[in-house]
Structure formats: C-alpha cells, structure tokens
C-alpha cells in the first residue's frame, strides 16, 4: 500500500506551493489514474515518489515504511520513451537490471521473457530508430517492468501518440496489467483515457493540491470501448470535464 500523509512540497527556490498537506492512499494491485490539467502538479507527484525531489513536510510511505529508507520500490516510465539510441531494444530493456547489478545470464533470461510478454521478441536486436512510436512506448514499458518493482508510475505514456495507436496501446496496457498483477499509477490529462483504463480516478482540481477527489469507475474488466458509450459513463465523463474546466477558469 502506498500512502501520502500530509505532504507539503514547493520546488527549491520557488515560492508557489505545489502540494499543501496532501493525503491519499493506493492499495496493492489497483489501477489508478491521476487526472488533472497540465501544469497542475501531476508529474511532480511522481518526482516525489521516485526520489528526484524531496518533500518538505509529511511523509510518503510504502507498506508503512518511509520511502527515504527504501530502494527500488517503484518503477517510473516517463512521457517520452527516452530509449537510448545506441542500445538495441534488448539492451534498453536490460538497462535497469544492469544498473542494479543483476548478473548477465539472469538479465538475458528476464529480458527475453519480458519481450515475449509485451509481444516484441522479434525486435530484440533492432535499434529504437527502427521502431514506430507505439512500439517504442512498449519497449519503454518493458524496460519499466524490468526495473522490478510492483508499483508502476506511468506519466502520460501515450499522450504523444496518434489516436489510433493510442487506443491500441490503452487496450494493450490493460491486458498487460491483468497479466502482471502490479499496482499502476497512471497520469493523464485525458478524461476518456482515465475512464477507460482505471478502477479509480484521482482528480486534481486545485493548485496547490490539498486533496484529490476519488472517483470509482463503475465498469468491470475486461473492458471494451463500447462501454464508454453507456449513459452512466457519459455522465461521468461530463462531470469530470466540468470539474477540470472549473479549475482552468478559476
């Protein structure tokens, strides 16, 4: 279980608070979307979680332990694929294990396994430049899984893709989530994406962020796109858009 407890955060040297006493929790195995307008502080949440920035007040805990004493507790996938162009697909996927000092035989084995699971094994020896944007994101996802933790932080991973590729990858991600049984925190500013993917949506409507509004998505898995057309879901979509709009106008 992940918990933010009364977290305060301001970027060093800035005056504008980003988080102000924010608390929320995420249970193991959940798929949660964090929905909010651009510039609202969503990525900042991840930067705090993966240790790139340090909070000034409160605590972030995983299974009751402060993250400051923990290592390899989350795997972060950035918005851009950030594949290293001088490495093959396979070498890119192995990078986190290499850094962690996993021995070569195990690296090779786990990577092969992972590439098969994400349906990319025939691209193992290719370079990122040989891949389409969608495939690159899948490689990036495989690399994230290879970082080995149970908590996946995905920061708008599909926002730079064309809409068809994006829809394909959303469905693909859900299949992966079922297979891998890991906790997913998924940042997006796209209402439909949040509804389609997640069990719960944490909506950010204020700045600084004092709380998140938690909304359950009343849909079972496996999901299909036509579920988005149910009246109840359409209403939810309108509500969310309304909530996000208010923030922009304020």
């Amino acid at each position, binding site marked *: 279980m992940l918990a933010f407890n009364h977290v305060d955060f301001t970027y060093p040297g800035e005056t504008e608070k980003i988080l102000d006493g924010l608390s929320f929790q995420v249970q193991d195995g959940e798929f949660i979307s964090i929905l909010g307008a651009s510039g609202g502080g969503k990525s900042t949440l991840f930067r705090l979680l993966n240790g790139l920035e340090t909070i000034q007040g409160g605590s972030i805990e995983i299974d009751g332990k402060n993250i400051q004493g923990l290592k390899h507790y989350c795997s972060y996938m950035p918005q851009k694929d950030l594949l290293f162009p001088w490495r093959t697909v396979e070498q890119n996927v192995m990078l*986190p294990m290499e850094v962690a000092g996993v021995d070569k035989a195990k690296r090779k084995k786990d990577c092969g396994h992972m590439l098969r699971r994400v349906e990319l094994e025939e691209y193992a020896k290719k370079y990122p430049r040989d891949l389409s944007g969608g495939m690159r994101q899948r490689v990036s996802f495989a690399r994230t899984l290879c970082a080995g933790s149970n908590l996946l932080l995905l920061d708008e991973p599909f926002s730079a893709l064309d809409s068809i590729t994006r829809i394909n990858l959303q469905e693909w991600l859900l299949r992966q989530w079922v297979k891998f049984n890991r906790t997913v925190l998924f940042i997006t500013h796209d209402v439909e994406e949040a509804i389609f993917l997640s069990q719960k949506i944490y909506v950010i409507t204020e700045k600084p962020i004092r709380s998140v509004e938690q909304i359950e998505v009343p849909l079972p898995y496996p999901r299909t796109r036509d579920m988005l057309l149910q009246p109840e879901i359409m209403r939810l979509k309108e509500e969310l858009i309304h909530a996000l709009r208010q923030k922009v106008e304020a």
Partner: protein
Amino acid sequence: MKKKLYGLGFGAFLILLWQLLAVKINASYILPSPLQVWQALQKNFGVIMTKHFPITMEVVLIGSGIALVLGISLAILMDLDERIEKAVYPILTVSQTIPVLCIAPIFVLWFGYTTTTRVIVVVLLTFFSITVNVFDGFKATKQEMTELMATYGATPMQQFMKLRLPTALPYFFTALKISIPWAVVGSAIAEWLGAPGGLGNYSRKMMMDLNAAGLIAPLLVISAVALLINMLIRLIERLVVTWRAEV
C-alpha cells in the same frame, strides 16, 4: 554518388584551368603546371616517402596521441567538477587567440630543432578542439535520461559509462575529423621552424631553389594523407556511431 560526380567534375575543371593558365604564363618558377607538379612528385617520390614522410607522420602520431589523451582527460575533469570547468574553460578559450605558430619559436629556444618542439606545436594546435568537442558531448546528455538513470539507482560511475560517454561519442568523432587532418598540416608547418626533414621542410627547401613544382609536390602528399585519415575516421565512425541520425 551524383553529388560526388559534381565535385569530381568541378575539380577536373579547375585542374584543367590551372594547366591552361600555366601554359599561358609559361614560367614554371611562378606557376608550374599540374603536369610539372606531377612529374616532380614522380621524380622525388622515393625520397619524399622514405625520408620526409616518416618524419612528418611521427610528429602527427605522437602529437595527436598526446592531444587526444590530454583533451579527453581535461574534458572528463571539467565534466566531473564544475569548479574545474570554471577555472579551465576561459583560459582555454583565451589561449586560442594566441597564434601558436608565432609563439612556436620559444619552444625552439627551449627544446631546439627537435621532434619535441614540433610535437608541442601539433598538440597546441589540436587539443583545444578535442577538449571542447568532447566536453560539449558530455553536456549534450539529456537531463531526462540522467533522471531516468537516477530512478534506477545509477551510481555516478554508471551515469558516466552508460549514458554520458555514449552521448559524447559522436562529438568525439567530430573532434577527430577536425583535429587529425589539422595535425598533419600543423606538423608540416612546424617543420618551417627548422627540422632535419619532413614534408614541410622539404617543401620549403624547394622554395629556396625556386623550384615551384617541387614545392607543391610534397603538399600533394600532405593533402592526400589528411584526406585519407579523414576518410578512415569517417569509416570507423560509421561502424561505431550507428545512431547519429537519431539525435
């Protein structure tokens, strides 16, 4: 290929023009014809290649070797510690405004007409661009990639070996392509200061004899060598840096 054809065609045209002009002027001590240069090269090829070429190339090899080690080390040090960068970089830049060939005589005072003197000249001529290019290469590392590595728990050494070094590699090849041909030219020019031989030295001797064709002949060898080295570097670059088009 087509582009090359244009270049070759224009080159041939220039040589033809030169030939015509030389025939018209008809004074080989002022403007020798390409044919006369070629004949001078053929006639002296033996002595040029066995005596003078090795003298020039020895300095090129030692000089660029030192420049590479020095330049790369300095670039790494500046990348490692910002204080070193702040201390060294401005001095490096200012030092470039000093014309190396004008202060070269002072090395003659210190070391005489020796290989050492000429090696110093070559090092001074080349190491700056190596340092700056490699350093820029390190700096071209994407912040986001550094952060991603950090989330994997990368140590500073891992950041350097797995990210900064590969990022800098294309820049390193740029440095090589600029500096090595320049080292060949520098080595030959340094021989003007006084040397037991060498292509530049030989060329200058021919000038004393008013033998213009003989003067140009060794220069052809210098150009050919510089060109050849440049091509070799490009070849290696293509094999090693397969991803350049990407960034």
